[in-house]
């Protein structure tokens, strides 16, 4: 098995995770014995990622910075098979959710996770959640620095943080190391963007108070350039201000975005800077040795430059149209010549977005061992990524993915839909999401048509909590409940590309479930008629405005 090219736990990390499993085992025992009430137990189980959903418990497993070794992916498959129904759901926050967990089995499932240096710590609850990153980190051609080094530093600092384990509300941090943000840093509680200043040093732009949910907001920059060794001091200062002033009187106003909105970004900056000034020379300052020791573990695999023009690839391109389309949509440039980043689409036509069976997970692990340096990534668009594939191996990788059903040439296209679990699983949802996604992806399954339509992101949430990120979909779909009937509200013009982060605008009255496909069809038809040159759907929308779309949809519906 190839060596991993990301952080490996040492004895300290392992000890902490197994002690956490032991603590949780005792908490479960006390609950089952009746020593803890549900009210007391619920926050305890949530801080270990265990929810109670409609039909069963759900375990949310953290995949820090979306990076997995094949050994870890195989263990996830094994856990899903042993303690669940043999499949899992990859989420928009680089987690894996198992939907049919039993409380009495959860400690053993967590112990199996700990065997491969994984956990479910802080995947729920009002505390610092799993830190997310660019899923192309370490391979992207436009990257300034690997953001996962910093994610790991933040992961350790935030794990069982004694001061910030009972915040007003959940707290999500994302880090990107590329100018082309693939981590949606402007819609997180704290977003960190690595960039290089004129002096040639890299540091962080600190963005605070973004988020989707009930009150979507785009984050505000409170510091243009933070020296990297002060990262933890600045985060601790930010969290302390939030812990103290964040609202606790109203659940819907308790995120940091509301605090920033209410006191203003200037006051937020002042308070954070004052706290930071008092702490920056404390033990939180990162030493060069500490940074270097973690950075070393993220050293990229030693890939040798290879041929970029490979006759077999060129031949297959001519002979197999699906492969040619797949190269266009699912294969991205790699920083090492002769290599590529391959996205395995977890969105085959008609399938629940982001779901993978245990057998499929094992299949992806086999492919990654053979052709991607034993490494797999989880993207926030609910796909899996093979980060280091030689171009000459693409035909074989394509065929292997095809056998798994994960070779759909649709990444970034209309059927690459993000959807939350919705009312089929979730106790908070008002409407179903997955069946809507399935109908849209079945309707638009034809690949040439998808490629003709071009880049179009549909994002579906089953309630206002917006786990499906509908606010930032080019087409956003929000399920609502009106007198027991599921209706779907459509919004247009959302985006998460860096510099262009935008929230969608509601198009008009919500439509019934069986009219959603027709409505999307009408939107696409309007775009195709109006588009100029290489305009994407969202560009055409920005140029011509909502009116033509509105007329077509409500004329047609």
């Amino acid at each position: 098995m190839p060596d991993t090219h990301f952080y490996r736990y040492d004895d300290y990390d392992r000890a902490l995770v197994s002690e956490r499993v032991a603590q949780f085992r005792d908490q479960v025992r006390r609950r089952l014995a009746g020593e803890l009430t549900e009210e007391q137990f619920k926050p305890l189980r949530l801080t270990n990622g265990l929810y109670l959903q409609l039909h069963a418990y759900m375990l949310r497993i953290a995949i820090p910075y979306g990076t997995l070794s094949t050994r870890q992916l195989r263990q996830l498959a094994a856990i899903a098979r042993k303690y669940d129904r043999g499949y899992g759901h990859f989420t928009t926050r680089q987690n894996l959710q198992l939907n049919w967990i039993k409380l009495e089995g959860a400690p053993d499932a967590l112990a199996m996770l700990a065997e491969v240096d994984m956990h479910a710590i802080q995947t729920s609850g009002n505390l610092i959640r799993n830190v997310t990153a660019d899923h192309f980190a370490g391979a992207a051609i436009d990257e300034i620095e690997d953001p996962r080094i910093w994610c790991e530093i933040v992961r350790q600092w935030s794990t069982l943080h004694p001061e910030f384990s009972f915040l007003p509300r959940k707290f999500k941090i994302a880090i990107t190391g590329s100018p082309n943000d693939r981590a949606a840093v402007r819609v997180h509680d704290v977003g960190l963007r690595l960039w290089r200043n004129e002096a040639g040093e890299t540091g962080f732009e600190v963005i605070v108070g973004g988020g989707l949910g009930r009150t979507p907001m785009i984050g505000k920059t409170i510091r243009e350039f933070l020296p990297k060794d002060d990262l933890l001091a600045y985060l601790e200062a930010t969290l302390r201000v939030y812990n103290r002033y964040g609202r606790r009187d109203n659940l819907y106003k308790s995120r940091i975005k509301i605090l920033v909105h209410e006191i203003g970004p200037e006051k937020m900056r002042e308070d954070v800077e004052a706290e930071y000034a008092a702490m920056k020379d404390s033990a939180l300052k990162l030493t060069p040795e500490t940074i270097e020791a973690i950075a070393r573990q993220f050293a990229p695999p030693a890939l040798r430059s290879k041929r970029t023009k490979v006759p077999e690839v060129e031949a297959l391109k001519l002979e197999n149209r699906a492969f040619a389309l797949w190269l266009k949509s699912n294969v991205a440039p790699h920083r090492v010549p002769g290599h590529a980043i391959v996205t395995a689409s977890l969105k085959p036509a008609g399938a629940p977005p982001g779901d993978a069976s245990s057998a499929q997970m094992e299949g992806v692990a086999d492919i990654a061992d053979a052709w991607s340096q034993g490494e797999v990534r989880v993207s926030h668009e609910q796909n899996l990524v093979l980060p280091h594939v030689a171009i000459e191996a693409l035909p074989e990788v394509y065929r292997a993915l095809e056998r798994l059903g994960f070779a759909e040439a649709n990444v970034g296209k209309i059927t690459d839909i993000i959807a939350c679990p919705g009312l089929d699983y979730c106790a908070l949802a008002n409407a179903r999401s997955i069946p809507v996604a399935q109908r849209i992806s079945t309707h638009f399954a034809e690949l040439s048509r998808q490629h003709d339509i071009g880049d179009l992101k549909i994002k579906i949430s089953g309630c206002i909590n917006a786990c499906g990120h509908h606010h930032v979909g080019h087409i956003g779909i929000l399920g609502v409940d009106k007198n027991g009937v599921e209706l779907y509200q459509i919004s247009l013009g959302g985006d998460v590309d860096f510099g262009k982060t935008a929230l969608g605008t509601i198009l008009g009255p919500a439509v019934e479930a069986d009219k959603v496909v027709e409505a999307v069809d009408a939107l696409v038809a309007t775009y195709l008629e109006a588009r100029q040159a290489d305009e994407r759907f969202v560009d055409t929308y920005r140029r011509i405005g909502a009116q033509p779309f509105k007329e077509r949809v409500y004329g047609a519906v």
Partner: protein
Amino acid sequence: MALFRLNPQAVQEPALTLANTDDVLALGDRLDGVKLIVLHFPKFTDGRAYSQARLLRERLGYAGELRATGAVFLDQLPFLLRCGFDSFESEQKGFAEALARARTLFSVVYQPTGDGRVTAGQLRLRQRSAVAA
């Protein structure tokens, strides 16, 4: 309500009781000579007093007794201890046993706080310099 104190001999007068909305950095001379500060958890999910405790201990150098009252349960103990609390009011069954175990529940800590524990990061640095030497 039972009281659990790590330093049973410590002087408890004069005492100062604070709400979890009080700004501890603005206490000024109200802190002078104080031997006991009582911080409040209205609900165990309301974590403001953790920040107050750390500021008192680490920023203001308060060395007297620091007591947690209100919704104080044994599962909070590892956090409370790390933030500098050394005295607890709780009704929960098994609290005394849990207090005895709380410091060893986690053999590893990542965050430097004022509790004197050596973090994983510091231990790694020591190991590396030992190897280098």
